[in-house]
């Protein structure tokens, strides 16, 4: 039985009509049966002939990882369900569009980046604020070779959630050091991150809110 209702399929098909280029999606999964994530990705691939789904079996971990695009810089760790389904859909559409949906300040920031940025966005499927942060990180990663984005389902990755002190979502952690709590505004994140990188504080953990303009 399909996961998406006929109504959902119709809506998704309409969203996918914005896709212009081929979008490779790689699902890394440990089992022969790729589970709910595999099923949902399969259904999405059926709705748009530009989506190319590749399934890779790996026994390294027992949780699914979804990579959107051919660069490996946009990753979903854990099942993108609930509100995170929106993040997945938006990131697929972004990957297939030729227009970069970032503000000019963000594009300049990315062009001038001296060091790589590894962004982690911790989410839960019941968090309506999370897709904004997840999609922004994914857009930055898609736009720059120096950025990687991992959207992490905190309940499926409790060891990462513990390591990075996640007690609320969304929590954005950049290079393991800079963090931002709650829904992120693109202008504020980029402005404060840019200031924080320039200030190069010594502390192991830095709240980006302290660098808000």
């Amino acid at each position, binding site marked *: 039985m399909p996961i998406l209702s006929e109504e959902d399929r119709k809506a998704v098909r309409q969203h996918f009509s914005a896709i212009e280029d081929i979008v490779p999606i790689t699902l890394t999964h440990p089992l022969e049966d790729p589970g709910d994530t595999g099923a949902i990705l399969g259904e999405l691939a059926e709705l748009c002939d530009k989506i190319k789904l590749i399934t890779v079996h790996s026994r390294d971990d027992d949780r699914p990882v979804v990579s959107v695009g051919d660069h490996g810089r946009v990753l979903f760790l854990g099942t993108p369900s609930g509100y995170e389904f929106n993040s997945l859909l938006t990131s697929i559409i972004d990957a297939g569009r030729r227009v970069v949906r970032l*503000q000019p300040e963000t594009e300049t920031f990315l062009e001038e980046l001296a060091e790589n940025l590894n962004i982690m966005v911790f989410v839960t499927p*019941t*968090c*309506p604020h*999370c*897709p*904004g942060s997840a999609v922004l990180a994914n857009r930055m990663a898609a736009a720059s070779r120096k950025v990687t984005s991992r959207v992490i389902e905190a309940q499926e990755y409790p060891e990462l959630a513990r390591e990075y002190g996640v*007690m*609320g979502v969304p929590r954005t952690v950049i290079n393991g050091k800079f963090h931002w709590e709650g829904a992120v505004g*693109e202008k504020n994140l980029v402005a404060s991150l840019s200031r924080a990188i320039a200030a190069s504080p010594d502390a192991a953990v830095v709240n980006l809110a302290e660098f808000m303009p």
Partner: protein
Amino acid sequence: MSAALYAARYGISHLVLESWQPGGQAALTSLIENYPGVPSVSGAKLAGLMKSQAVEAGASFVTETALLASASDEGFLVATDSGSHHHAKTLIIATGAAPAKLGVPGEDRYIGRGVSFCATCDAPFYRDKRVVVVGGGDSAVKEALHLADVARSLVLVHRRDALRAEPRLARRLVENPSCTVKWSSTLSAVTGDDHGVTGVDLNTPRGMEHLETDGVFLYVGTRPATEPFANLVELDERGAVLTRNIVETSVPGVFAAGDVTANAFRQVVTAASDGARAAWAAFEYLEDRRQS
């Protein structure tokens, strides 16, 4: 959402600018039991149903956040975070509200590390832990009941000696064996260490009291999301849109609906009603202009 549904059904050429999730504050509500015709439903599910119904009726949604609205020669101009500028003859402001902060020491420091405004988002992190909820309205009590299902213990801190929430909800909380209420008490500080929240300081009728806790959920009112409209329409001291006849703002052609308005009694059902009225008022406004 109801403004979108009615605008679509009235055949008004329209665009709905939606930030990330449909449903705003309602989508953050774990359980809604007072929406007529729907005995019990999660906020997210109800918001999803409303959106599907609006889309089915022909409503057009785009995922863009309004940054600035201004008057223009043709009517109004709305700039959004995607860099677009949308022109319209009439506007409906239905941007809702965000949770308010208490403004006490420690609150900002521990946001995301024990201080939360969203039980539906963060409840999974508090399984078998101690939780404090601050507030006494419908949201505070509903979310306290939701958290009580997962937490080891829950203390509700309320500044008055009776809950403002619906009596039915209030009774459920008071009768819940894992919930305790600190009446006539206010939270004066959030304390913690490098890892997160460890406790709260309370002003109680018996004096200052320190309570150990792993998390603090705040439901102490809302801040209307009116920043993009601050130079367009008249706001009250709280920043809410002032309206006449429920949905008419100080600017002809601009209407407001739901929690963004200064109207008292903010419920999903009243917001839905406002949205329908706002769409109808917009329709009438466009008809009047067309005929004149």
